């Protein structure tokens, strides 16, 4: 356990010092996607449920927060709260349906539900269709701190990211997380031990959806934009890829994976469709030869969970 605290301290130190040398907006993007991937990993890595529709939570929260900040003029913390709450509600609604099936059916159902949300946002008048919601004001945090200052924004994103990360860490190592792992390993046995597995799975699903929403809402304020990209199926695929690259079921893997994929997308941006090809190739390589992911391999090497 203690070595994980050191790694966590190292991660905090990195994100605190990095903006001195790296473009802060880029780091904020990494943190938003890292939180998104951590939330996704909570479900697949610890609950064994592969969601192929997590973009619906990320994107919905992004739209709702952007709408709340721009049209209703809410302060940023309330806008983020509103977006996250929306994602949680969507998590309850879709979770009740999706957890009725397992394995690949679960993946197909979440993908289909996310596609339904995509069409909803495509047609709904408040989302601005293809244009999305642009020029979202960052506003003043608690009515006091002006977030158009990049350092104030950076500190806010850092706090949100670390808070979300610690919550997931806490959940994973709590009795709740242990039951979740038991369900992943052998659901019939968990039922025979008297656990209401449906309820546990739903709780994990909603928690994952909520935190994915927190990431999406924060992202919409950072980039001052909510668009269809955030709810598109390729976004769901990207978060799967990040988690896979970093290491499914590891605590720090999704953060590393998000950093790798966001960096890659940044450098390959001018290559257009080649980004998709490279992502596909990474998927194939990871599945065929590198199933533990970066952090999973390191953890295996030092024989300690990371």
């Amino acid at each position, binding site marked *: 356990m203690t070595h994980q605290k050191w790694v966590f301290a190292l991660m905090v130190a990195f994100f605190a010092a990095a903006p001195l040398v790296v473009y802060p907006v880029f780091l904020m993007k990494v943190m938003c996607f890292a939180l998104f991937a951590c939330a996704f990993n909570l479900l697949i890595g610890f609950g064994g449920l*592969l969601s192929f529709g997590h973009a619906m939570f990320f994107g919905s929260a992004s739209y709702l927060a952007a709408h709340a900040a721009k049209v209703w003029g809410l302060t940023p913390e309330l806008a983020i709260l509103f977006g996250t709450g929306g994602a949680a509600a969507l998590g309850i609604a879709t979770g009740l*349906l999706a957890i*009725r099936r397992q*394995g690949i059916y679960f993946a197909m159902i979440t993908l*289909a539900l996310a*596609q339904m949300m995509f069409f909803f946002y495509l047609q709904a008048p408040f989302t601005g269709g293809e244009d999305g919601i642009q020029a979202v004001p960052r506003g003043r945090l608690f009515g006091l701190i002006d977030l158009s200052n990049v350092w104030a924004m950076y500190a806010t994103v850092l706090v949100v990211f670390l808070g979300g990360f610690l919550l997931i860490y806490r959940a994973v190592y709590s009795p709740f997380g242990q039951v979740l792992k038991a369900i992943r390993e052998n659901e019939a046995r968990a039922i025979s031990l008297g656990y209401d597995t449906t309820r546990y799975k739903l709780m994990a699903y909603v928690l994952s959806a909520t935190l994915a929403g927190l990431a999406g809402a924060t992202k919409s304020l950072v980039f001052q934009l909510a668009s269809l990209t955030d709810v598109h199926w390729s976004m769901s695929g990207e978060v*799967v890829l990040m988690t*896979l690259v970093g290491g499914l079921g590891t605590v720090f893997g999704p953060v590393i994976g998000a950093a790798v994929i966001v960096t890659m997308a940044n450098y390959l941006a001018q290559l257009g469709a080649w980004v998709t090809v490279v992502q596909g190739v990474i998927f194939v390589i990871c599945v065929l030869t590198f199933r533990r992911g970066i952090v999973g391999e390191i953890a295996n090497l030092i024989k300690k969970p990371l």
Partner: protein
Amino acid sequence: MPEIFGIPTSALFGQLLIGLINGSFYALLSLGLAVIFGLLNIINFTHGAQYMMGAFCAYLLVNKLGLGYWWSLAIAPLAVGITGVVIERTMLKQLYKLDHLYGLLLTFGLALIIEGLFRNEYGSSGQPYPMPQELTGGRNLGFMFLPTYRAWVIVASAAVCLGTWFVIEKTRLGAYLRAATENPQLVQAFGINVPRMITLTYGFGVALAAFAGVMAAPIYQVSPQMGSSLIIVVFAVVVIGGMGSIMGSILTGFGLGVIEGLTKVFYPEASNTVIFIIMAIVLMFKPAGLFGREK
């Protein structure tokens, strides 16, 4: 002009026809998915990309080699089917002992690669594909105009679907296939080459997707993205039908196509989402799907 529920009949039947056409593609694709899933326990995410490859194969055959529609209908499923066999032999084969989810992830990655490569080569805009000369025109049925090609698509897909059903349910080969779906070890012990059967099944499922792609080429434009959004709808169709039964996949495919078509007439705003909404309702009352078996 005659009307039903305040809708002109020609519009109603027109949308019904479009629904049946879409239903043909849903049926062909979900049938392929079900056949592959039965034996490989893998959901083939590449299916949409392979449908697109079938359409592009037809496009390239006519533009590079001057081979027309009928040639494409034979060559494209064969060529794309062979790429499927290669994928199964080189990659999918390694995953059978692992969690089924890895198969989904691998085929998703392959779909990204294929779609990205085609987008690099041909851009995002659609390419037109000429309608075969024998099937141009149409006839007036009195209550609506029926284009010959569309009638052909419905008849041909229904024939291919029923043919597949017949082979799987009524022949000796199909009996082997069904037996291997239930218990591959036992069937192998009887001296049947199950790994080869798996390979050929995947190839066949992929060929069905490519066949659907060729059929779609003259109706929709040939574009790299034509498969990715379709495959998500087909996933919903598969969840609604349940993958336990071949006939179930076919009926669900055609049925949902018709329902989608009718939605376009009566409530067009919901036409994109109606299949997903039906999926949600079916999940509430019959989680295993209409024709599925609870495991």
